[in-house]
């Protein structure tokens, strides 16, 4: 679990149009710069926004990643719901604070 670096990547992506361009052209070379688990790499590469949500990525970062990979708002909400259905409740981060 390296939620910190997973979120750091998304934070940098959201801030830097040049990194977004690099990411679109060659995802793997950008991902290599971050200390990520196999599951996190898969979630980013697929991309599996639902799994990213379950891994604990904050929505303030995730909604922009969803937009970057071409999801509409409704698709983004649906992806998170599907993720929880498939993988279970959020495992870490702020949304794991209490059980709902």
């Amino acid at each position, binding site marked *: 679990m390296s939620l*910190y670096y997973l*979120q*750091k990547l998304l*934070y940098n992506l*959201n*801030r830097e149009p040049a990194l977004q361009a690099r990411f679109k052209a060659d995802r793997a070379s950008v991902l290599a710069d971050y200390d990520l688990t196999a599951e996190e790499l898969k979630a980013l590469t697929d991309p599996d926004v639902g799994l990213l*949500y379950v891994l604990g990525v*904050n*929505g*303030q*970062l*995730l*909604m*922009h990643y969803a*937009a*970057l990979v071409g999801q509409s*708002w409704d698709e983004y*909400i649906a992806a*998170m*719901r599907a993720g*929880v259905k498939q993988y279970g409740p959020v495992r870490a981060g*702020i*949304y794991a*604070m*209490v059980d709902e």
Partner: protein
Amino acid sequence: MPLVFAGIGSHAPGIVNRAERVEEERREAFYDAYRRMGQAIRDAKADVLIVIAAEHFANFFMNNMPAFAMGMADYYEGPIEDEAWMRIARRKIPGNRDLSERLIARVMEETDVSYCEEWKFDHGIMVPLNFLTPDYDFPVIPANINCQGPPLTPLHRAWAFGQALRHAADAVPERVAVVGTGGISHWPATPNSGKINEAWDRDFLARWQKNDKAALLSYTDTDTYRDAGQGGFEIRTFIAIAGLAPEASGEIWHYDAIPPFAVGCTVGALTLKQTIAA
């Protein structure tokens, strides 16, 4: 110069980028309340608008997360979000570096604050400005309270930040307006987006209107998360505004829980006792 305006307002991105999901009459009533606040700021002949926002990992991250931060630049840039997504064109927004520096130095006498010579505005500032100063030509000084990455800024420190900012505003010759932006209860950018606990919101706003310090500071983060979602942590910005003027009561100009906007859409202002002739 004594503080000339203090208000609160919502900032959820849906207010702008999902506008068409709400019938025109309903959304315009909210937008009009926000525009009225912009007019009030201009009528107060403010020289600068400080926006206390709950930043969302646009400028600050867990590698170095300030409890409080203030901008100290001659201009800023926003929105940081994709322009098409945010439906606001990216632009420069004027600041006032010299005034920032004087305010920050004074705030530091009471509260530790990070200063930032670079700041990219996210929806927490761009959405309010979209209605307050739609040409984005009015000088803004951004401020941030950590409402996102625990450990969060304690509520009583948010209140104390408001106090420190008030003392700073009173100490400079410029006319300073301050607006705190955030949500009350909401579950932004999660599967629960659109959920709003209106009863909780109205109870919070009642405390805010009375400027009841003890009641405003009595929330715990565990309770807030349970009842008001992660977005509820943003009450810190409204509490800071209360701390600006403990002698003043508040007035809610607009409240409407609008699920497509994913927040109880709020506009309010403190009734400042000391109004200074321009």
